[in-house]
Protein backbone atom coordinates (compact mmCIF):
# COMPACT_ATOMS: atom_id res chain seq x y z
CA UNK A 1 0.00 0.00 0.00
CA UNK A 2 1.90 3.01 -1.26
CA UNK A 3 0.75 6.25 -2.79
CA UNK A 4 1.07 6.24 -6.57
CA UNK A 5 3.65 8.58 -8.09
CA UNK A 6 2.89 12.28 -8.07
CA UNK A 7 4.60 15.56 -8.80
CA UNK A 8 5.61 17.09 -5.45
CA UNK A 9 5.53 20.84 -4.98
CA UNK A 10 6.86 22.70 -1.98
CA UNK A 11 5.86 26.35 -2.32
CA UNK A 12 7.51 28.91 -0.07
CA UNK A 13 4.74 31.50 -0.38
CA UNK A 14 0.95 31.43 -0.64
CA UNK A 15 1.27 33.22 -4.00
CA UNK A 16 3.42 30.39 -5.36
CA UNK A 17 1.00 27.78 -3.98
CA UNK A 18 -1.86 29.47 -5.84
CA UNK A 19 0.19 29.68 -9.04
CA UNK A 20 1.00 25.97 -8.88
CA UNK A 21 -2.65 25.13 -8.20
CA UNK A 22 -3.68 27.17 -11.24
CA UNK A 23 -1.21 25.33 -13.49
CA UNK A 24 -2.53 21.82 -12.92
CA UNK A 25 -5.95 20.25 -13.37
CA UNK A 26 -5.55 17.70 -10.65
CA UNK A 27 -3.69 19.00 -7.61
CA UNK A 28 -4.30 18.35 -3.92
CA UNK A 29 -3.15 20.30 -0.91
CA UNK A 30 -1.12 18.45 1.71
CA UNK A 31 -1.69 20.03 5.13
CA UNK A 32 -1.42 17.62 8.07
CA UNK A 33 -1.95 14.62 5.81
CA UNK A 34 -4.13 12.85 8.38
CA UNK A 35 -7.04 12.49 5.95
CA UNK A 36 -5.24 12.85 2.62
CA UNK A 37 -2.44 10.31 3.07
CA UNK A 38 -4.75 7.43 4.09
CA UNK A 39 -6.73 7.95 0.88
CA UNK A 40 -3.47 8.06 -1.11
CA UNK A 41 -2.16 4.92 0.63
CA UNK A 42 -5.34 3.13 -0.42
CA UNK A 43 -5.09 4.76 -3.84
CA UNK A 44 -8.58 6.14 -3.47
CA UNK A 45 -6.85 9.37 -4.41
CA UNK A 46 -4.19 9.41 -7.13
CA UNK A 47 -3.45 13.09 -7.54
CA UNK A 48 -1.21 14.34 -10.32
CA UNK A 49 0.31 16.99 -8.05
CA UNK A 50 0.67 17.23 -4.28
CA UNK A 51 1.22 20.76 -2.96
CA UNK A 52 2.77 20.61 0.51
CA UNK A 53 1.94 23.75 2.53
CA UNK A 54 4.37 23.03 5.36
CA UNK A 55 6.65 25.96 4.57
CA UNK A 56 3.81 28.50 4.64
CA UNK A 57 4.39 30.12 8.02
CA UNK A 58 2.08 32.87 6.83
CA UNK A 59 -0.82 30.40 7.30
CA UNK A 60 0.37 29.11 10.66
CA UNK A 61 -1.00 31.50 13.29
CA UNK A 62 -3.65 31.94 15.95
CA UNK A 63 -4.82 35.45 16.82
CA UNK A 64 -7.43 36.68 19.23
CA UNK A 65 -8.55 40.28 18.71
CA UNK A 66 -11.74 42.34 18.60
CA UNK A 67 -13.93 39.49 19.78
CA UNK A 68 -12.80 37.08 17.04
CA UNK A 69 -10.49 34.05 17.14
CA UNK A 70 -8.63 33.86 13.81
CA UNK A 71 -6.92 30.59 12.99
CA UNK A 72 -4.57 30.24 10.03
CA UNK A 73 -5.26 27.18 7.87
CA UNK A 74 -1.93 25.52 8.79
CA UNK A 75 -2.30 25.88 12.57
CA UNK A 76 -2.15 22.37 14.03
CA UNK A 77 -5.28 21.23 15.87
CA UNK A 78 -3.25 20.40 18.99
CA UNK A 79 -1.62 23.84 19.10
CA UNK A 80 -5.01 25.57 18.97
CA UNK A 81 -6.38 23.20 21.62
CA UNK A 82 -3.52 24.08 23.99
CA UNK A 83 -3.70 27.86 23.39
CA UNK A 84 -4.99 29.46 26.61
CA UNK A 85 -5.87 32.75 24.95
CA UNK A 86 -8.18 30.88 22.58
CA UNK A 87 -9.74 28.94 25.46
CA UNK A 88 -10.34 32.19 27.37
CA UNK A 89 -12.01 33.88 24.38
CA UNK A 90 -14.10 30.87 23.40
CA UNK A 91 -13.84 27.74 25.57
CA UNK A 92 -16.07 25.83 23.13
CA UNK A 93 -13.11 25.63 20.73
CA UNK A 94 -10.95 23.59 23.12
CA UNK A 95 -13.84 21.41 24.23
CA UNK A 96 -14.63 20.61 20.59
CA UNK A 97 -11.02 19.92 19.60
CA UNK A 98 -10.64 17.41 22.44
CA UNK A 99 -13.18 15.29 20.57
CA UNK A 100 -11.32 15.31 17.26
CA UNK A 101 -9.55 11.98 16.70
CA UNK A 102 -6.66 11.19 19.08
CA UNK A 103 -3.92 13.45 20.46
CA UNK A 104 -1.32 11.88 18.13
CA UNK A 105 -3.53 12.66 15.10
CA UNK A 106 -4.19 16.22 16.32
CA UNK A 107 -0.44 16.75 16.65
CA UNK A 108 -0.28 16.73 12.83
CA UNK A 109 -3.84 17.54 11.70
CA UNK A 110 -4.55 21.17 10.87
CA UNK A 111 -7.67 23.25 11.36
CA UNK A 112 -7.71 24.20 7.66
CA UNK A 113 -7.38 20.56 6.61
CA UNK A 114 -10.37 19.47 8.65
CA UNK A 115 -12.53 22.30 7.29
CA UNK A 116 -11.44 21.77 3.66
CA UNK A 117 -12.05 18.04 4.02
CA UNK A 118 -15.68 18.85 5.00
CA UNK A 119 -16.62 15.54 6.54
CA UNK A 120 -20.14 16.01 7.97
CA UNK A 121 -19.16 13.73 10.88
CA UNK A 122 -16.21 15.95 11.77
CA UNK A 123 -16.35 18.24 14.78
CA UNK A 124 -14.61 21.39 13.48
CA UNK A 125 -16.98 22.08 10.56
CA UNK A 126 -19.84 21.84 13.05
CA UNK A 127 -18.08 24.20 15.46
CA UNK A 128 -17.63 26.80 12.69
CA UNK A 129 -21.24 26.42 11.53
CA UNK A 130 -22.75 26.54 15.01
CA UNK A 131 -20.71 29.63 15.93
CA UNK A 132 -21.72 31.32 12.64
CA UNK A 133 -18.02 31.59 11.90
CA UNK A 134 -16.47 32.43 8.57
CA UNK A 135 -13.92 30.84 6.29
CA UNK A 136 -11.55 32.80 4.10
CA UNK A 137 -10.24 31.30 0.87
CA UNK A 138 -7.73 32.66 -1.59
CA UNK A 139 -7.33 32.06 -5.31
CA UNK A 140 -5.94 33.70 -8.45
CA UNK A 141 -8.57 36.45 -8.22
CA UNK A 142 -7.87 37.20 -4.55
CA UNK A 143 -9.40 36.50 -1.16
CA UNK A 144 -13.04 36.01 -0.29
CA UNK A 145 -14.77 35.21 2.97
CA UNK A 146 -17.64 32.76 3.11
CA UNK A 147 -20.08 32.27 6.00
CA UNK A 148 -19.57 28.77 7.43
CA UNK A 149 -23.26 28.03 6.84
CA UNK A 150 -22.71 28.52 3.10
CA UNK A 151 -19.25 26.93 2.96
CA UNK A 152 -20.23 23.31 3.58
CA UNK A 153 -22.35 22.14 0.64
CA UNK A 154 -22.34 18.35 0.79
CA UNK A 155 -20.24 15.39 2.00
CA UNK A 156 -16.59 16.33 1.30
CA UNK A 157 -17.83 19.29 -0.79
CA UNK A 158 -17.33 22.98 -0.08
CA UNK A 159 -17.97 26.33 -1.76
CA UNK A 160 -14.23 26.56 -2.52
CA UNK A 161 -13.30 26.67 -6.21
CA UNK A 162 -10.75 24.09 -7.43
CA UNK A 163 -8.11 26.81 -7.82
CA UNK A 164 -8.65 28.22 -4.32
CA UNK A 165 -6.98 27.46 -1.00
CA UNK A 166 -8.45 27.74 2.46
CA UNK A 167 -6.44 30.34 4.39
CA UNK A 168 -8.29 31.25 7.59
CA UNK A 169 -11.11 30.29 9.93
CA UNK A 170 -12.72 33.00 12.05
CA UNK A 171 -14.75 32.10 15.12
CA UNK A 172 -16.51 34.71 17.28
CA UNK A 173 -15.53 34.86 20.95
CA UNK A 174 -18.22 34.09 23.51
CA UNK A 175 -19.76 36.98 25.38
CA UNK A 176 -19.15 37.33 29.10
CA UNK A 177 -21.53 35.03 30.94
CA UNK A 178 -22.32 32.92 27.89
CA UNK A 179 -22.37 29.15 28.56
CA UNK A 180 -21.06 26.49 26.17
CA UNK A 181 -20.81 22.74 25.67
CA UNK A 182 -19.60 20.22 23.12
CA UNK A 183 -20.14 16.50 23.59
CA UNK A 184 -20.51 13.56 21.30
CA UNK A 185 -21.28 9.91 21.50
CA UNK A 186 -18.84 7.56 19.79
CA UNK A 187 -18.49 3.79 19.98
CA UNK A 188 -14.87 4.22 21.09
CA UNK A 189 -13.12 7.37 22.24
CA UNK A 190 -11.58 9.18 19.28
CA UNK A 191 -13.75 7.51 16.69
CA UNK A 192 -16.02 9.51 14.48
CA UNK A 193 -19.19 9.91 16.48
CA UNK A 194 -22.72 8.61 16.08
CA UNK A 195 -23.67 12.23 16.71
CA UNK A 196 -22.11 15.28 18.33
CA UNK A 197 -23.67 18.52 19.51
CA UNK A 198 -22.30 22.05 20.05
CA UNK A 199 -24.19 24.59 22.15
CA UNK A 200 -23.80 28.14 23.37
CA UNK A 201 -26.36 29.66 25.72
CA UNK A 202 -26.85 33.18 26.98
CA UNK A 203 -29.47 34.34 29.47
CA UNK A 204 -31.01 37.80 29.55
CA UNK A 205 -31.49 39.99 32.64
CA UNK A 206 -34.93 38.34 33.02
CA UNK A 207 -33.21 34.88 33.19
CA UNK A 208 -34.86 33.86 29.95
CA UNK A 209 -32.85 32.50 27.06
CA UNK A 210 -31.54 35.50 25.18
CA UNK A 211 -29.47 33.66 22.57
CA UNK A 212 -28.81 30.02 21.91
CA UNK A 213 -26.71 28.42 19.17
CA UNK A 214 -27.15 24.71 18.44
CA UNK A 215 -25.43 22.56 15.82
CA UNK A 216 -24.69 18.89 15.27
CA UNK A 217 -22.30 16.62 13.40
CA UNK A 218 -22.86 13.12 12.07
CA UNK A 219 -26.56 13.52 11.28
CA UNK A 220 -26.77 15.00 7.77
CA UNK A 221 -24.74 15.50 4.59
CA UNK A 222 -23.33 18.75 6.00
CA UNK A 223 -22.79 20.08 9.52
CA UNK A 224 -26.34 20.69 10.74
CA UNK A 225 -27.69 23.84 12.35
CA UNK A 226 -30.62 23.05 14.64
CA UNK A 227 -32.37 26.34 13.88
CA UNK A 228 -35.81 25.07 14.80
CA UNK A 229 -34.58 24.22 18.29
CA UNK A 230 -32.88 27.60 18.52
CA UNK A 231 -36.14 29.38 17.66
CA UNK A 232 -38.10 27.18 20.05
CA UNK A 233 -35.77 27.92 22.97
CA UNK A 234 -35.25 31.65 22.49
CA UNK A 235 -37.22 33.78 24.96
CA UNK A 236 -38.17 30.83 27.19
CA UNK A 237 -37.16 30.12 30.78
CA UNK A 238 -34.61 27.30 30.98
CA UNK A 239 -35.74 24.09 32.65
CA UNK A 240 -34.98 20.38 32.33
CA UNK A 241 -38.38 19.86 30.67
CA UNK A 242 -37.68 22.59 28.14
CA UNK A 243 -34.29 21.10 27.28
CA UNK A 244 -35.82 17.64 26.88
CA UNK A 245 -38.45 19.07 24.55
CA UNK A 246 -35.73 20.74 22.49
CA UNK A 247 -34.05 17.33 22.21
CA UNK A 248 -37.24 15.75 20.89
CA UNK A 249 -37.60 18.58 18.39
CA UNK A 250 -34.03 17.98 17.16
CA UNK A 251 -34.83 14.43 15.99
CA UNK A 252 -36.19 15.63 12.66
CA UNK A 253 -32.81 17.11 11.75
CA UNK A 254 -31.38 13.60 11.25
CA UNK A 255 -31.42 13.01 7.51
CA UNK A 256 -28.77 10.28 7.10
CA UNK A 257 -30.19 6.80 6.76
CA UNK A 258 -29.13 3.64 8.56
CA UNK A 259 -25.51 2.61 8.26
CA UNK A 260 -23.79 -0.64 9.15
CA UNK A 261 -23.43 0.25 12.82
CA UNK A 262 -26.20 2.74 13.52
CA UNK A 263 -29.87 2.94 12.63
CA UNK A 264 -31.51 6.29 11.96
CA UNK A 265 -33.83 5.85 14.95
CA UNK A 266 -30.87 5.19 17.25
CA UNK A 267 -29.06 8.25 15.92
CA UNK A 268 -32.16 10.36 16.59
CA UNK A 269 -32.29 9.01 20.11
CA UNK A 270 -28.62 9.85 20.72
CA UNK A 271 -29.06 13.32 19.25
CA UNK A 272 -32.09 14.10 21.44
CA UNK A 273 -30.15 13.05 24.53
CA UNK A 274 -27.09 15.06 23.59
CA UNK A 275 -29.10 18.21 22.90
CA UNK A 276 -30.77 18.07 26.30
CA UNK A 277 -27.55 17.15 28.09
CA UNK A 278 -25.42 19.81 26.41
CA UNK A 279 -28.01 22.52 27.04
CA UNK A 280 -27.91 21.54 30.71
CA UNK A 281 -24.10 21.68 30.78
CA UNK A 282 -24.07 25.03 28.99
CA UNK A 283 -26.66 26.32 31.45
CA UNK A 284 -24.43 25.49 34.44
CA UNK A 285 -21.67 27.50 32.79
CA UNK A 286 -23.72 30.67 32.26
CA UNK A 287 -23.21 33.63 34.51
CA UNK A 288 -24.84 33.30 37.89
CA UNK A 289 -26.24 29.82 37.21
Amino acid at each position, binding site marked *: *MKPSAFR*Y*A*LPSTLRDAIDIRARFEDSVILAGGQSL*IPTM*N*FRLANPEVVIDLRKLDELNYVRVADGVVRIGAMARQRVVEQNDEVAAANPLIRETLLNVAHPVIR*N*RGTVGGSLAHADPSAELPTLLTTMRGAITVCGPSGRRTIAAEDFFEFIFTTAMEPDELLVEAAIPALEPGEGWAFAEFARR*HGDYSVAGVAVTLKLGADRRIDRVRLGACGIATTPALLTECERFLTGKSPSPELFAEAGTLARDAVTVSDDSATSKVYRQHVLAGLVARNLTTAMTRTDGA
Partner: protein
Amino acid sequence: MTETTEFEPNALVRINVEVNGRAVSEEVSTRLLLSDFLRHQLRLTGTHVGCEHGVCGACTVHIDGTPARSCLTLAVQVDGCSIRTVEGLANADGSLHPVQQAFKECHALQCGFCTPGFMMAVAGLLDERDDLRTAEDDSIREDIAGNVCRCTGYMNIVSAVRRAAELTNEKG
Protein backbone atom coordinates in the same frame (compact mmCIF):
# COMPACT_ATOMS: atom_id res chain seq x y z
CA MET B 1 13.74 32.46 2.68
CA THR B 2 13.76 29.12 0.91
CA GLU B 3 12.81 28.85 -2.76
CA THR B 4 9.67 27.22 -4.04
CA THR B 5 10.62 23.80 -5.40
CA GLU B 6 8.91 21.20 -7.57
CA PHE B 7 9.87 17.58 -8.20
CA GLU B 8 8.89 15.31 -11.07
CA PRO B 9 6.98 12.11 -10.23
CA ASN B 10 9.36 9.51 -8.78
CA ALA B 11 12.12 12.09 -8.46
CA LEU B 12 14.71 11.41 -5.79
CA VAL B 13 15.00 14.17 -3.22
CA ARG B 14 17.78 14.55 -0.71
CA ILE B 15 16.55 14.93 2.86
CA ASN B 16 18.57 15.75 5.93
CA VAL B 17 17.14 14.46 9.17
CA GLU B 18 18.35 13.63 12.61
CA VAL B 19 17.31 10.10 13.55
CA ASN B 20 17.79 9.08 17.18
CA GLY B 21 20.42 11.76 17.55
CA ARG B 22 22.37 10.78 14.41
CA ALA B 23 22.53 13.03 11.35
CA VAL B 24 21.22 11.25 8.27
CA SER B 25 21.34 12.45 4.69
CA GLU B 26 19.47 10.24 2.23
CA GLU B 27 17.84 10.36 -1.17
CA VAL B 28 14.17 9.40 -1.07
CA SER B 29 11.39 9.04 -3.59
CA THR B 30 8.74 11.74 -3.06
CA ARG B 31 6.06 9.11 -2.47
CA LEU B 32 8.01 7.18 0.18
CA LEU B 33 6.24 7.07 3.54
CA LEU B 34 8.24 7.92 6.64
CA SER B 35 7.44 4.46 8.03
CA ASP B 36 9.01 2.79 4.97
CA PHE B 37 11.93 5.20 5.00
CA LEU B 38 12.72 4.15 8.55
CA ARG B 39 12.15 0.44 8.02
CA HIS B 40 13.43 -0.20 4.50
CA GLN B 41 15.96 2.50 3.90
CA LEU B 42 17.43 2.98 7.39
CA ARG B 43 16.70 -0.61 8.49
CA LEU B 44 15.18 0.62 11.72
CA THR B 45 12.56 -2.11 11.86
CA GLY B 46 11.47 -1.36 15.42
CA THR B 47 8.77 0.91 14.03
CA HIS B 48 5.93 -1.43 13.10
CA VAL B 49 3.38 -1.01 10.35
CA GLY B 50 -0.09 -2.37 11.01
CA CYS B 51 -2.72 -0.60 8.97
CA GLU B 52 -1.12 2.23 6.98
CA HIS B 53 -4.12 4.46 7.44
CA GLY B 54 -3.63 5.96 10.86
CA VAL B 55 -5.91 3.70 12.85
CA CYS B 56 -3.68 1.24 14.75
CA GLY B 57 -0.88 3.49 16.08
CA ALA B 58 1.84 0.82 15.68
CA CYS B 59 3.94 3.16 13.52
CA THR B 60 4.02 6.06 16.03
CA VAL B 61 7.36 7.90 16.18
CA HIS B 62 8.34 11.36 17.44
CA ILE B 63 8.75 14.18 14.93
CA ASP B 64 10.50 17.15 16.55
CA GLY B 65 9.59 15.76 19.95
CA THR B 66 5.89 15.12 19.27
CA PRO B 67 4.30 11.72 18.65
CA ALA B 68 3.00 11.29 15.10
CA ARG B 69 1.97 8.53 12.68
CA SER B 70 4.89 7.66 10.43
CA CYS B 71 2.49 5.96 7.98
CA LEU B 72 0.64 9.25 7.45
CA THR B 73 3.77 11.27 6.79
CA LEU B 74 5.90 11.39 3.67
CA ALA B 75 9.64 11.11 4.20
CA VAL B 76 10.09 14.39 2.27
CA GLN B 77 7.90 16.16 4.83
CA VAL B 78 10.42 15.57 7.62
CA ASP B 79 13.39 17.15 5.85
CA GLY B 80 15.12 19.21 8.53
CA CYS B 81 13.28 17.50 11.39
CA SER B 82 14.48 15.34 14.22
CA ILE B 83 12.97 11.85 14.45
CA ARG B 84 12.98 9.52 17.40
CA THR B 85 12.00 5.89 17.03
CA VAL B 86 11.72 3.07 19.56
CA GLU B 87 15.40 2.28 18.89
CA GLY B 88 16.18 5.70 20.37
CA LEU B 89 14.35 5.18 23.66
CA ALA B 90 16.98 3.29 25.69
CA ASN B 91 19.93 5.18 27.10
CA ALA B 92 23.37 5.03 25.50
CA ASP B 93 24.58 2.64 28.23
CA GLY B 94 21.80 0.23 27.35
CA SER B 95 19.69 0.94 30.42
CA LEU B 96 15.98 1.06 29.69
CA HIS B 97 13.83 4.15 29.28
CA PRO B 98 11.18 4.37 32.06
CA VAL B 99 8.49 3.39 29.54
CA GLN B 100 10.40 0.27 28.49
CA GLN B 101 11.12 -0.64 32.11
CA ALA B 102 7.46 -0.16 33.01
CA PHE B 103 6.18 -2.25 30.09
CA LYS B 104 8.57 -5.02 31.13
CA GLU B 105 7.65 -4.89 34.82
CA CYS B 106 3.91 -4.72 34.23
CA HIS B 107 3.83 -7.38 31.51
CA ALA B 108 2.25 -4.84 29.19
CA LEU B 109 3.13 -6.75 26.03
CA GLN B 110 2.50 -10.17 24.64
CA CYS B 111 3.23 -10.52 20.93
CA GLY B 112 4.88 -7.11 20.95
CA PHE B 113 3.54 -5.93 17.63
CA CYS B 114 1.81 -2.86 19.05
CA THR B 115 4.50 -2.18 21.64
CA PRO B 116 6.84 0.24 19.81
CA GLY B 117 3.90 2.47 18.88
CA PHE B 118 2.50 2.34 22.39
CA MET B 119 5.84 3.17 23.94
CA MET B 120 6.39 6.16 21.69
CA ALA B 121 2.87 7.44 22.38
CA VAL B 122 3.33 6.95 26.14
CA ALA B 123 6.78 8.57 26.08
CA GLY B 124 5.12 11.61 24.51
CA LEU B 125 2.41 11.53 27.13
CA LEU B 126 4.99 11.53 29.95
CA ASP B 127 6.49 14.72 28.54
CA GLU B 128 3.08 16.35 28.57
CA ARG B 129 1.24 15.19 31.67
CA ASP B 130 2.64 15.28 35.19
CA ASP B 131 -0.48 13.80 36.80
CA LEU B 132 -0.22 10.30 35.34
CA ARG B 133 0.87 8.58 38.57
CA THR B 134 -2.48 9.29 40.13
CA ALA B 135 -4.64 9.62 37.00
CA GLU B 136 -7.91 7.72 36.70
CA ASP B 137 -7.92 4.73 34.34
CA ASP B 138 -10.41 6.51 32.09
CA SER B 139 -8.22 9.51 31.49
CA ILE B 140 -5.21 7.31 30.71
CA ARG B 141 -7.30 5.17 28.37
CA GLU B 142 -8.53 8.29 26.61
CA ASP B 143 -4.99 9.39 25.91
CA ILE B 144 -3.83 6.02 24.59
CA ALA B 145 -7.04 5.26 22.67
CA GLY B 146 -5.22 5.96 19.40
CA ASN B 147 -3.19 2.76 19.81
CA VAL B 148 -4.68 -0.67 19.30
CA CYS B 149 -3.50 -3.87 21.00
CA ARG B 150 -4.98 -7.23 20.08
CA CYS B 151 -3.35 -9.24 22.85
CA THR B 152 -3.20 -7.68 26.28
CA GLY B 153 -6.69 -6.37 26.92
CA TYR B 154 -5.09 -3.04 27.89
CA MET B 155 -5.23 -3.53 31.69
CA ASN B 156 -1.48 -4.01 31.98
CA ILE B 157 -0.76 -1.22 29.52
CA VAL B 158 -2.71 1.21 31.69
CA SER B 159 -0.73 -0.01 34.72
CA ALA B 160 2.50 0.44 32.77
CA VAL B 161 1.62 4.06 31.97
CA ARG B 162 1.25 4.74 35.67
CA ARG B 163 4.42 2.83 36.51
CA ALA B 164 6.36 4.72 33.82
CA ALA B 165 5.25 7.99 35.43
CA GLU B 166 6.44 6.68 38.81
CA LEU B 167 9.83 5.66 37.42
CA THR B 168 10.22 9.02 35.68
CA ASN B 169 9.46 10.75 38.94
CA GLU B 170 11.96 8.64 40.92
CA LYS B 171 14.66 9.58 38.48
CA GLY B 172 13.74 13.20 39.22
